[in-house]
């Protein structure tokens, strides 16, 4: 087995928490399967598939979403469907957080959502489609130079329920209370190594620790902006427990929030890390979920559903 350069510290860290370290490390050197989603704001799934088939592009529906597909073809980006915004190329695990809000949308189709870290807008546009252009998504990103790409994607996909704002979410001043919040936090991106090897060459534990501090600050501010009874989805594309379980554990210790169990029919989710270094995480943290790349041939991911209790119910 060829191992490309995986730092020794990285190996030690994750050998301790993954079920099958050899399979895990090996998976990191394999390219990621290509995936896309049909944009139901502008197109119909069956028609798109029929046309792709006509080009000789094979597309397999994943078990857990009607709109999500994997394909062996590297031509999806050169199709009329891509030009028209009928399909959007997006990694599979990146599609999970918006799906966590499906039930909430059903109960309240006109809800208000904050997408706290939205650029380039993959999850924003997906959520916009799940909401069928109803309600309101406030799409925020702190990076001014990444706003252009959100704008481009919103226009191309036909989103009419999204407003773009530019704040450091930690200091976002608003008196709005959101029904739902997506916090797809900036992270050390270890779960994207299959797509981008550079992640490993600049990998270091110091950055993990400092990012974790930033994430705790962000999740705290986001929780304040969530209305009582509302749902926040916290996600990262990294393996580091400091940025995942550690952040959720922190919020549990600082607030009245409750975690909700995550189920995605048809996708193998894994349990969380129970303890890390000298910290044993609160038992509620176990309701969050991890996706390991060697289980379903995806990128790596962490996702947690965080509920703010209704007033007077804690």
């Amino acid at each position: 087995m060829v191992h490309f350069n995986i730092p020794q510290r990285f190996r030690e860290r994750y050998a301790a928490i993954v079920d099958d370290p050899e399979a895990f490390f090996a998976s990191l050197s394999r390219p990621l399967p290509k995936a896309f989603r049909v944009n139901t704001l502008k197109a119909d799934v069956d028609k798109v598939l029929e046309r792709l088939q006509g080009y000789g592009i094979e597309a397999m529906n994943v078990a857990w979403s009607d709109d999500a597909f994997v394909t062996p073809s590297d031509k999806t980006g050169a199709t009329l469907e891509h030009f028209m915004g009928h399909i959007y190329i997006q990694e599979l695990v990146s599609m999970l957080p918006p799906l966590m809000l499906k039930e909430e949308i059903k109960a309240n189709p006109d809800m208000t959502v904050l997408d706290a870290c939205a650029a380039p807008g993959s999850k924003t546009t997906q959520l916009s489609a799940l909401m069928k252009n109803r309600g309101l998504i406030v799409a925020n990103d702190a990076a001014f130079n990444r706003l252009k790409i959100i704008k481009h994607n919103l226009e191309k996909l036909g989103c009419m329920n999204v407003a773009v704002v530019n704040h450091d979410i930690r200091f976002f001043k608003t008196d709005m209370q959101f029904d739902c919040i997506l916090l797809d936090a900036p992270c050390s991106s270890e779960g994207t190594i299959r797509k981008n090897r550079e992640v490993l060459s600049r990998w270091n534990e110091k950055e993990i620790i400092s990012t974790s501090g930033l994430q705790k600050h962000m999740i705290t501010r986001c929780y304040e902006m969530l209305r009582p009874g509302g749902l926040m989805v916290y996600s990262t594309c990294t393996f580091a427990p400091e940025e995942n379980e550690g952040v959720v554990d922190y919020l549990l210790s600082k607030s009245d929030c409750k975690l909700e169990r995550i189920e995605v029919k048809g996708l193998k989710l894994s349990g969380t890390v129970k303890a890390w270094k000298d910290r044993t995480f609160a038992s509620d943290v176990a309701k969050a979920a991890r996706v390991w790349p060697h289980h379903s041939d995806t990128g790596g991911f962490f996702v947690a559903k965080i509920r703010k209790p209704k007033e007077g119910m804690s």
Partner: protein
Amino acid sequence: MKLAPIRPKEAEAMLEFMENRFGIPRNAFEGLEFMDNGKGKIFAMNERNAVFCNRNNIMSASLPFMRFDGATKPTSMMIQMFGARATKGIVHVDRNKAKDYMAGFDIMAKENACSDGYVIIKYNGFPLGCGLLRNGDIKNQLPKAKRMPVELI
């Protein structure tokens, strides 16, 4: 920026233009609000979004709908969304011309039934975007960021 609702008279004129030039019926835009950025650019969005964009400082809005400041120019993104309902003001193109158009080139359309002005470029049922027809030549109106080479059509 903040967006302001356009005046009813302007909304009326815009809808009339859509009807007269493209045959797109008014009910195609039901439930949408039209908002002005103060520079003659009109955006279409749902009501919740319109209220937010009116009260808060936003960086960008979607969907850009048309220019309406003396010039009356539909956006390509609006055409992709609503152009399927058009019955006129359409220039049908073949494969090669469609590819040229998507890549950002101007195209020739000697034979078409449209009067000069903005037209919908349509290929095989797909409204690709906006063109400006003048004497049988169509100037490409796709925004730069939306242009791309397309192989499979």
